[in-house]
C-alpha cells in the first residue's frame, strides 16, 4: 500500500503550506492530478487520506483527484494516440513502440481551496 506513504507526503506538504499561512485557514479541498500511467490507485489514495486526516487540521477536507489519460506521441505518424493500458502500447497505425509520453505520468498536488472566515476575534479583556 504505497498510497499510504504518498498520502503521508501529501499531508506533510499541505501542512507546511498551512503552517506558513498567518491565519491558518480551513482547508476545504485539495486537488490532485494523477496520471493513469502511474502506480497510484485513486481509490486507495482516497481511503488513505480519509483515515490519515481524522482528527487533524485536514479532517473534513475533500480530496479531489483529477485523472489524466495516457497519451503518447508517435514520431513516425506525427500524431498523438491513446495506448490501452494493460493491453497495447505501440502506435495503433504504424506499430512503433511507445516512446514519447505526453500525458499520464503526472503525480501532482495542483491546488488547495480554503475558506477564510473573517477574523472575529474576541476582544482581549481589559
Amino acid at each position, binding site marked *: 500500500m*504505497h498510497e499510504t506513504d504518498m498520502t503521508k507526503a501529501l499531508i506533510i506538504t499541505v501542512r507546511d503550506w498551512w503552517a506558513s499561512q498567518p491565519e491558518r485557514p480551513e482547508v476545504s479541498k485539495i486537488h490532485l492530478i494523477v496520471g493513469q500511467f502511474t502506480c497510484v490507485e485513486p481509490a486507495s489514495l482516497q481511503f488513505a487520506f480519509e483515515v490519515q486526516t481524522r482528527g487533524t487540521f485536514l479532517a473534513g477536507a475533500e480530496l479531489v483527484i483529477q485523472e489524466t489519460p495516457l497519451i503518447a506521441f508517435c514520431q513516425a505518424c506525427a500524431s498523438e494516440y491513446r495506448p490501452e493500458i494493460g493491453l497495447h502500447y505501440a502506435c495503433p497505425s504504424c506499430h512503433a513502440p511507445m516512446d514519447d509520453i505526453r500525458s499520464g505520468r503526472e503525480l501532482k*498536488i495542483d491546488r488547495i481551496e480554503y475558506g*477564510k472566515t473573517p477574523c472575529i476575534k474576541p476582544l482581549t479583556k481589559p
Partner: protein
Amino acid sequence: MHQTFDEALGINLLHANQEGADHNRAHFDEWDITCLNIMSSPGAGKTALLEKTLAALSPELNIAVIEGDMTTELDADRLRQYGVPVIAINTGRSCHLDARMVAGGIHQLKHQHNPANFDLVLVENVGNLVCPAEFEVGEHGKVALLSVTEGEDKPLKYPVMFREADVLLITKTDLAPYLDVDLNQIVANARQINPQVKIIPVSAKTGEGLAVWFDWIRAAVGKTSPQLVSSAEGA
C-alpha cells in the same frame, strides 16, 4: 460570510522522496560510485543474480550491497558469503525502498567503511513490480528482472516498472524449454513500452547471458550520470 480562496501549489506528490534521492545520488557522485537499483517481483531471482555478480565482479570492482529485505536477513546472509559489505535495511511491511531508507544504508556504509573506496553499490529492492518503480532511491540506473515463469504479459500489466528500466534481465532462461513461454514475446512486449531498454536473457543456473550483464556493469561503472549509464547499453 465564508469566502473561498484558491492557492496553486503544483508540487509533485513525491517531491520529498525525489529530494532525498537527489541527495543520495550527490553522495554517490562525490565518492565516484555507480548505484544500480535492482527490482523485480518476489522470486524472480534478484538474490541469485547478485550472488553470481558478486562472485564474478568482486575481484575487479569494489562492490557494496544495500539489501531491502522485508523482515529477515536471509538474503543479506546469502550475499555476505562473497566478502562484500551488505547493509540490510529492514523495511518492515513496506512494499518498496524509498530514498530515506537508502540514505540510512548509505550512512551505515559511511560509518563502517571509506565510501570513496567503492565503485559500485547494488541496491536490491523489495520484491514488487508496482511501487518500487515510483520511488527513486538515488540510483544511476534501474535494473528490472522478469523470470520466464512469470509469463509474457507482465510488461503489459506492470508497464511503469518496465518503462522506467534501463536494463531488463529475463531470468531463469534454463527453465524456458519446460514452459509454454515465448521469449520473443516477452521482448516484444517490453519493447512496446520501452524501446530503449537493453534486454539481456540470463540464467544464474547455467551462466547463460551473464557475461553480457557483467560487461554492461563494467561499462556503467565510473560513468555516474544516468545518460552515461544508458549509453553503456551499446557496449
